[in-house]
């Protein structure tokens, strides 16, 4: 069905609203039009696609998301990547990625066992323990497991060096002897704060640095459900791993020869 001028205008208006606000509640009149008018929806989705973006809808919100690659837009995450792009700084970025992943894994529960979101918080200390356990387990595994690629093992070593050796556990505030994660550096707890900053900046979590607790917000669950509870996306990711593994092996073999 042809799209009329009005739909284009409203579609564009809604797209820019999304671009501005990232998440728009369905109670918003334009969002409501997006929900009910399929032509308007396709206008918005096409504009987004042109910019390497995706729009998705839940019963409560409309979200605008970046794509893994090919997006014209930066965000708090790409900004972090940028910050740690140097060869030496890269292990910081890797460690941050691992912390984000462990945090996501920890809060990702079957929807029916989730309690109310404000109670799902995780303490900094627990997260730090999980990171330590994960890294240590990988280090032990690579000793006797050929499945781990050389690349991966190298990266894990670098991260382990950073997390286990270079970082102290936490640092106290100079003012009042409390644990200070926002103003201290080079310690595990403050790096958790840094690593999760992209999530906090986007309003997906509440990072309570006084109580040393991180609380996922419902919008984060909406994204997790949409992105990772999807068979197709999982298969795509597996494929990506396979391809990359093959390339890596070829490279390693070539080096041997």
């Amino acid at each position: 069905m042809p799209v009329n001028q009005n739909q284009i205008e409203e579609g564009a208006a809604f797209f820019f609203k999304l671009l501005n606000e990232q998440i728009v509640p369905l109670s918003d009149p334009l969002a409501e039009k997006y929900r009910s008018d399929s032509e308007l929806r396709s206008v918005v989705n096409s504009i987004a696609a042109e910019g390497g973006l995706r729009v998705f809808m839940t019963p409560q919100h409309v979200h605008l998301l970046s794509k893994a690659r090919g997006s014209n837009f930066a965000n708090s995450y790409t900004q972090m990547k940028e910050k740690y792009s140097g060869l030496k700084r890269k292990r910081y970025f890797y460690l941050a990625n691992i912390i984000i992943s462990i945090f996501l894994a920890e809060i990702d529960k079957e929807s029916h066992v989730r309690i109310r979101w404000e109670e799902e918080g995780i303490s900094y200390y627990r997260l730090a323990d999980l990171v330590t356990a994960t890294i240590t387990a990988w280090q032990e595994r690579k000793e006797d497991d050929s499945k781990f690629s050389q690349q991966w093992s190298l990266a894990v070593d670098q991260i382990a060096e950073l997390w286990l050796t270079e970082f102290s556990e936490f640092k106290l505030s100079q003012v009042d002897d409390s644990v200070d994660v926002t103003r201290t550096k080079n310690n595990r707890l403050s790096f958790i704060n840094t690593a999760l900053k992209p999530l906090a900046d986007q309003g997906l979590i509440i990072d309570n640095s006084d109580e040393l607790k991180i609380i996922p917000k419902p919008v984060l669950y909406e994204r997790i459900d949409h992105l990772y509870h999807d068979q197709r996306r999982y298969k795509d990711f597996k494929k990506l791993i396979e391809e990359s593994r093959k390339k890596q092996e070829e490279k390693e073999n070539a080096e041997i020869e």
Partner: protein
Amino acid sequence: MDEASTGLYERLKKTAAISRLGQGMDLGELNDYTHQIALYLLLKVFYREINNNLQRTKNDLIEMTAQIIEEMKFTASNEQLERLVDGVLYSGDPRQQAPFSVMLFDENLREHREFKYRYLVPDREASRWDEGGSTVYMLTETSQEIIFLTREVLQEFGFDLEQFYTLQLIKNGNFTEAKSSVSNLIARVRTLIKNEKNWREDIMRNPGLIFSARQERKKRTEVEVRKQFEDEKKVFNDMFRWRDRLGRFSGEQKKEGELLFEELERARALHDRLAELTISNLSLELEIRRENPDIFWKTAQTSFKKDFWQDTIISSGLSDMDLLTELIAPLFSPEQGFIFPLDWAWSEQQLYTYLQEEDYEDEEEWEEEEPVLKELDWGLLVELWERVFEELLRSGQYPLNKLTLLAADEQRRWLSQEKNLELFMMFIITEIRLREINEEFAGLDERLVLFNKLLEKNQQFKRLIGKKMTASLETGAEKVKLGEEFEISPYILYVVD
């Protein structure tokens, strides 16, 4: 006496009765579970009591205990069953039939004093000893309290039973007792209202719950729910019928009764609110089912925790750490502030005016003004940009937030040329190699126009010829903001070889 100790003795009576329930008998492997069994037994007796069921003799108690044991998948001999029941009826050696006794601190006397109580006592009226009937047991006030206390926590029984209980008390003219029961009714309906509100939020957030939480939440049709509310309404009406009879009572009791019905009025209003909420939630469920049928098809769901993280990455690693980016990046929304594709930035400006117009739509004075087309003043532009390029020449970089340090009228000069924002954005978005040109032509990159005008004015800029101009984001810095319409991310312009 301080506040903390106020009512301590009364509280201790309740916690002692709870903590000692079913304790102190030797039942071998069942020892750890006697408390649970005993509480369950009290509940069973209580339900029979309020339903006027007279099957509450010792033999009935033993039979109920046998049911509980079976339900909990334990086994017990007849002796053990009997010992259990005795242990709820009496303290110590059953042959003594002694009441339970405990020394509790009385904050008023400032000393310990004995508190004696039982969990079950004979229901004299129901026992019909005269006709040779065996003893029918009923709960004491103490054990009723245990049930009320735990009911608050566990929401042990439904609204309808609470209502029924209240009605019985009203019928007996026990208004004082009935009033506290109405308080429970109100507390209960409040909890139910809160539950409905939470449920609404939950299914909005996660429609899959309609499917997955079905077992926890009684699955009822709207007709059933409506009928239940009608029934409950009827019980309220029954209760209110007793209001007319208040006249028969006198003095204190009449006053109690009036207070009771005031409370009951509140309970009824809350109940109506609950009914409203529940019905609207049911239609919401229906709507979600209708509009998002896909959520009920999805059966083979994956999860981040199990599939992506534990089974894939934790167990076999990745060939390349950078793959983690592929995993995480799609979680994030684009942020407009960081990169401004030129034409989209203008669209935003247009949207802005479009929204503004809508705001003023109702005002009669609103007149559409033709935007004044500003003349491009290259003289001024060159003068302004000269500072920027001098800085680039000197230190190789120019942080945009320097603009905010400029004096107010200098800022106004920057703002007077719309071109400035555009030029900045062009520098930010793409790199450009600075070069000398022989002549201007339409479509020539305006940055080069600017650079060449600067060259004309100041020979020292020749040192920049052949260098590349690029930009990077200054992390952690504030956005650069001049006036209302000039807003840009905190970039630093660089020259590199």
